[in-house]
């Protein structure tokens, strides 16, 4: 049997690498959200007196927007797998726009929260701002990955870059789903 590349029936290494990175980050978010629940069961009054409960509408809408941004990413990955470079470029660009808008709004909300509530006020504020910050950083990193993909795909679509698109798409599916969980945790006082 000569050493030719047979039909692929296993995922490329880059994809598996991203799956393991996602497992690590999921475990990280798991411990963060477990800490939120742990601290919540410590105190009877959550959020403490003098702190307004977080509004639920804006974060929920934004979380759904982030989930929506995963669709063009899926389309881009699908197109890249079929070698359609231009369609993949369009998909990523569209996703990038939505994600950038999403991050802009979130940072605006974050800054607004900061003006009313100092993270060093108490455990509620500390875990609230930390959990949100970690998710925003992951969205920021995702946007950088998108920019890198756009730069690479603008020239050629090699098999390596095809794997990169599917890996980054998988990363965005994770960030979107974890965004739902983070939003649910953050807005849990309003349930």
């Amino acid at each position: 049997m000569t050493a030719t590349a047979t039909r692929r029936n296993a995922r490329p290494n880059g994809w598996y690498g991203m799956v393991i990175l996602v497992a690590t980050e999921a475990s990280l978010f798991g411990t963060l959200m477990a800490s939120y629940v742990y601290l919540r069961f410590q105190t009877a009054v959550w959020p403490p007196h003098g702190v307004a409960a977080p509004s639920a509408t804006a974060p929920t809408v934004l979380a759904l927007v982030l989930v929506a941004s995963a669709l063009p990413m899926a389309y881009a990955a699908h197109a890249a797998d079929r070698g359609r470079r231009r369609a993949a470029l369009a998909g990523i660009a569209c996703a990038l726009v939505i994600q950038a808008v999403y991050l802009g709004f979130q940072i605006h909300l974050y800054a607004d929260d900061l003006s009313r509530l100092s993270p060093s006020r108490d455990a509620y504020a500390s875990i609230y701002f930390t959990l949100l910050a970690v998710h925003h950083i992951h969205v920021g990193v995702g946007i950088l990955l998108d920019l890198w993909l756009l730069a690479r795909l603008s020239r050629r679509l090699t098999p390596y870059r095809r794997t990169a698109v599917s890996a980054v798409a998988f990363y965005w599916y994770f960030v979107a789903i974890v965004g739902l969980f983070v939003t649910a945790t953050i807005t849990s006082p309003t349930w």
Partner: protein
Amino acid sequence: MAVGTAARERVERLDRIWQERPGFTGWLTTTDHKRIGILYLVTSLAFFAAGGVEALVMRTQLAQADERVVGPGTYDQLMTMHGVTMIFFFVIPLSIGFFGNYLVPLMIGARDMAFPRMNALSYWLYLGSGILLYSGLALGHAPDAGWFNYVPLASRKFSPGTGVDFYALGLILNSVSSTAAAANFLVTIGRLRAPGMSLNRMPLFCFAILATSFSLVFALPALTTDLVFLELSRKFGLHFFDVGRGGNPLLWQDLFWIFGHPEVYIIVLPAFGIATSIIPTFTRRRMAAFPLVALAELLVAFIGFGVWVHHMFATGLPEIAMIFFAAASLIIVIPSGIQIFAWCMTMVTGKPEYRTPLLFIVGFILFFVFGGLSGIMLAAIPFDQQVTDTYFVVAHFHYVIWGAAVFPLLGGLFYWFPKVTGRMYDERLGQTTFWLVFIGTNVTFFPMHISGMLGMPRRVWTYPGHLGWGPENFISTLGAFFLTGGLVLMAVNLVVSRFRGPLAGPNPFGGATLEWATSSPPPSYNFAVIPKVSSPYATWDEDDRETDPQRLERGDFVLEGGHLTPGTTPVDGHMDEILAMPEESPWPITLAFVATLGTAFILANHLIMAAAMAALAAAVLVAWHSGEPEAA
């Protein structure tokens, strides 16, 4: 091995393709898993020496009652640095960094790890975090709140110095390196096994590394979250642990031990792998009950995630909450029991030949059984509430970490010494070393059981004379120096044999796994032809090994068109694709340098510079991926 002219040409072509850059810069930019393994070996042994010196100073201080060799401040720094160094910078880097990196690709018949450059990054980040931590010691700011660094002692109010910051940021950098290494192993073991090597034909050492990597991937994030919480509360005044502001110090303990206990299984699992590699070779018999041993290694890692509260039995948790973890801490003994009986039965039904590696493994079994039994006792809640934080626990974990994790590492150093250096160690000196280290370990750590039962707490820099702790501590100190003598003899034996030892040949001990089918030391491309595998003991399958030269002659699976290695399906190992591996590159060491510098800036509160380093790191990453290969 290369007989025909075509075969010789192919080997020369492979040599040219896989040729490493010579000299010092070659080591800085290497991505060859064997050279990275040797870098890990040398660095972890250096940290071992540092940790050993710290231990000797502590033992000298505790030799007699009311000694004043060092004051409490220095002793607390020594005690913390000894714990952190031995766990994070010696035993794990040696077992995963050296043994894992060097042997896994060879044992599965691959030419390198799945992500060679990330492998180099893991090493340089490890070195960076080590230098960062030890620069803290040099500046006099070593951490002094113990290796598990409980809050509120570790909070800014009670540890105002920067020692704890060195601890936290150093370990965050170290855990990035370990997570990258774990991901690398998982993908390598999953995707790069030689065609035909289904799961039940994979050597048991690789199951141990697989289980270790599984634990690392899911345990380290808990430590990272904990350390981020600590740094945010120390540097920016956030309140996760302050009771007055709604926090709880037990949150630190929970998060730390969710990482802590899987961590101790991460320490001991590679040692199980080494034991299951050495025993078949020296008993000339396959490992008994192969599926059960493979299962046991994976189970120890999995159940290890459900036992962490046994470190907190004395903190006043409700009984019904503690009972879950007492049950799991008891049941986790079963996988270890299966392994112990499998090792013993392999030796009983085999023909054991007691050379140095097997001696260390017999010592390992004795220590692991004794330490494991004291471990079960600690799962009994009332007894643990009496002996936790005493020297009984110190004795338990030294029997299990030193006796059960480091003994196989020492045995492994002897066992694979011929393969790594191509020369044989001195057998007589090796056996003497074993007896010195075995007796030294018992004389050092056994008396600690007694001083623990007599009520001596952990981490005390001195003790009064009238409580009967004096004799035990004095014997322990004697043992520590005796043990050091044994280790010095081992170092002399290996260093001298490295240069003047007799040539060893490819398979001096008749080993079973694939690394013994290559020359000693193996060529940079590991296998001229990707080996055909039909059992976990590939080198013992003579008929497969005879076909290798003919296949080399025919050019069957030589893959000489570049840095190539086969990619296979995870469960059954069917041939899937040919992977092009990147060659050596300067980017890993650059990225590690930038990351360590950035961490140092955070330590020094220069956050703007730290942000600049982060941007630089992103730029380095883009450059890293600029010249990527065609295939995925």
